[in-house]
């Protein structure tokens, strides 16, 4: 090995280490005052905001003046303090946080950054607007649903969900068409938790999803049924037949995951008329479909489902068998009696499952 080259290398490493140590020392020296300043701003902002919350009062001009940030760093601290509280509050207290977001200029700046050339800035802006829950941002966020950046569209949808802009729902649901599966998961989450604070009725969330059930894309149908399975409830019975009819049609969907989610959604609706269709789901080739059929039959109930569920307890798939057992427990005494009735003649896996059900129901104890 060439000695001068080795010397050069050694010197290069000495220099690199030296530079790194000096940079670290400078950082350590400067960090303390910067962090102290951040902590000071944080304490100052938190004091004013917490006072508003605790006193349950409107922010005065004096409060707002104390909060208006002088620079970008202060603004980031204020955004974080407000976002933390906004995430925890409900009702009037949260509205006040929105007012603070708006009157301190944070919303205005975020709106202007929503059209920034840098995608990163647009993402942050959309996130901030979501935290603000400011209705002033609705139109701009709607436009952002057509942003070239997938993340911006996803975050804008989430922000609209937090604001509770019901009009945006059909546009958000249509994102299932052009976003990848992973971002669809985020959009689905947005729709399911849409406007929880502003009480957007479930019916309004369901309608645009029902419209997507016959879409030609398997991905769109899946995410629509997936959301419906979390949104449909017994409370929607008055409007259920129409939704149920569309969901029942999906039980013969070529995609197993769509069929499975359709089973789950039908179970959530809880219409006993749908039980025969779900019973046929217990014979599906997909274990996932059989599992959700069993669960939904437990939710729907009715004397007719007992035999089907008892039989499903012997399903070779562990999850289907377990779900059938749980469904029988959900059926209460009738289900437990039926299990007790079959336990005497059962063997192997069915017997073990029956004993588990009876143990959960408190009818047998382990040795």
């Amino acid at each position, binding site marked *: 090995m060439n000695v001068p080259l080795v010397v050069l290398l050694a010197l290069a490493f000495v220099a690199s280490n030296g530079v790194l*140590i000096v940079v670290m020392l400078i950082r350590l020296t400067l960090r303390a005052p910067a962090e102290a300043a951040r902590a000071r701003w944080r304490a100052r902002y938190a004091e004013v905001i917490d006072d508003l919350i605790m006193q349950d009062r409107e922010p005065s001009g004096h409060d707002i003046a104390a909060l208006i940030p002088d620079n970008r760093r202060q603004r980031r601290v204020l955004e974080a303090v407000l976002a933390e509280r906004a995430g925890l509050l409900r009702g009037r207290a949260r509205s006040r946080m929105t007012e603070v977001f708006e009157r301190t200029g944070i919303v205005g700046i975020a709106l202007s950054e929503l059209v920034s050339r840098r995608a990163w800035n647009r*993402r942050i802006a959309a*996130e901030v607007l979501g935290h603000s829950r400011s209705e002033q941002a609705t139109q701009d966020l709607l436009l952002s649903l057509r942003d070239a950046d997938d993340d911006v569209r996803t975050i804008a949808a*989430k922000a609209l969900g937090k604001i509770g802009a019901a009009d945006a729902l059909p546009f958000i649901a249509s994102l299932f068409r052009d976003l990848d599966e992973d971002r669809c998961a985020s959009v689905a989450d947005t729709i399911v938790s849409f406007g929880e604070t502003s009480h957007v009725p479930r019916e309004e969330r369901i309608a645009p999803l029902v419209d997507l059930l016959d879409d030609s894309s398997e991905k769109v149908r899946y995410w629509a049924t997936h959301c419906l399975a979390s949104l449909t409830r017994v409370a929607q019975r008055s409007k259920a037949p129409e939704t149920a009819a569309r969901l029942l049609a999906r039980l013969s969907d070529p995609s197993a995951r769509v069929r499975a989610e359709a089973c789950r959604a039908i179970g959530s609706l809880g219409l006993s008329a749908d039980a025969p269709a779900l019973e046929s789901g217990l014979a599906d080739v997909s274990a996932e479909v059989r599992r959700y059929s069993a669960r939904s039959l437990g939710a729907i109930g009715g004397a007719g489902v007992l035999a089907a569920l008892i039989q499903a307890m012997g399903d070779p798939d562990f999850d289907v068998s377990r779900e059938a057992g749980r469904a029988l427990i959900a059926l209460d005494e009738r289900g437990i009696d039926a299990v007790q009735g079959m336990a005497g003649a059962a063997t192997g896996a069915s017997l073990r499952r029956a004993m588990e059900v009876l143990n959960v129901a408190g009818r047998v104890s382990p040795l």
Partner: protein
Amino acid sequence: MSWQDLLQVIVIVDFFIVHGSYSLLTLLAFPAVRTQHRRAFIDDYPHVFRSRLAPGVSIIVPAYNEEATIVENVDSLLMLRYPQLEVVVVIDGATDATLDVLREHFGLTKVIRVLRDDITTQRVNAVYASERIANLIVIDKQNGGKADALNAGINASNHPYFVSVDADVILEEDAVIRVMTPILRNPRLVVAAGGILRVANGCEVRGGRVIRAALSKRTLPVLQVIEYIRAFAAGRAGLSVINSLLIISGAFSAFNTALVREVGGYARDTVGEDMEILVRVRRHLARQKRPYRVLYLAYPVAWTEVPETLKALGRQRARWHRGLSETLWKHRDTAFNPRYGYMGLVAMPFFLVAEFLGPIAEATGYAIFLLLVLTGDVNFAFYLLFLSIAVLWGVLLSLSAVFFEDVNFRWYETWGSYTRLVWLAVLENFGYRQLTVWWRLRGLAQFFAHRRAWGKMERRGFGAGARNGRARS
């Protein structure tokens, strides 16, 4: 060229490959971790916590003779923030009162539960549940080792994902949310994720949480702090960027449950079960041509107590190297095999050269030097320069890792802590580094001798009071 010259060339080439690779990984890691750090705002963790679509997670805790700490640890796990969480404690044939203290504290009663038998394990004696805490399951089984206990936990798991956690590890409150967030974002692609493991020795621990991060007053744990920062913050983060992670710490890692069942669970014939399972999952997916990602996350923090004596540390390092060797040997057919993509062409060769052969090359270098000194053939100028480069390059990697830590996370609040880390990053090259080489060679020897015992780990325990030493299965 004489055989000494040939060996020298091999040692020097290996040195440049190893240090060059680590430097490259550090360069890759820095922007990736920085982005992760910045993304924290967008990821909106509180939102994940409230999500109704977040899939359930089972926390599996293998426990063997953990009576002193198990209650506190399970309590802290039950308080973790996540929408659907169950805690599965697997008592692996404990000989102390681990089960009794759990029964008493949580009001456990024996229940009948049908457990899966997808993965064969030692016999389960009983399953316990609590009427007060619905999401706690305790499995009492015959001793079969950590891998067997994890498999029993997977059999008992009711959720699509599981997080394996060592019984002596302290998790940050949001650790599960954070480790699950990238999985939720990419459920079809991300099959496993692991977070950074930090050293708890010296930290202030209260109520099962680390209240204040600080360095231990003793030198040995601080040297390990530097190693952990270097290994996690730079090494693993860099490997994650190029999808070449072969290990995520068994002390805190999240996996897709169905996938682990599909590959037959953790292997019981190795002491490096955490690395082996990941390699097996990866090769399984590669064979099926399924796209996947294994992620390292810079933030989800688990704190662990590291050995404070050279004896215990030596045993631990030997075991780690034995586990690494066993895994590399078992899956040797994947190395340099394009069928396995990044794993075959990047990860396996890197681990083979840098991790497996690293200590052999370094020890050979020291041996040649001594031999040449004895025979009087040594070129002192050259060797001193080479040694300086080796030390300075090592110091640079360590300092970069510490710098990394300071820029992104700033766990340690005082000037003194960072100054101490910088000093020890230099000093570790004189003595400590050579010791780790020796321990790894011992691990290698044990691998060749097929030793499989876990060895003893003397733990002082967290919090104010030091506890009795415990043995691990």
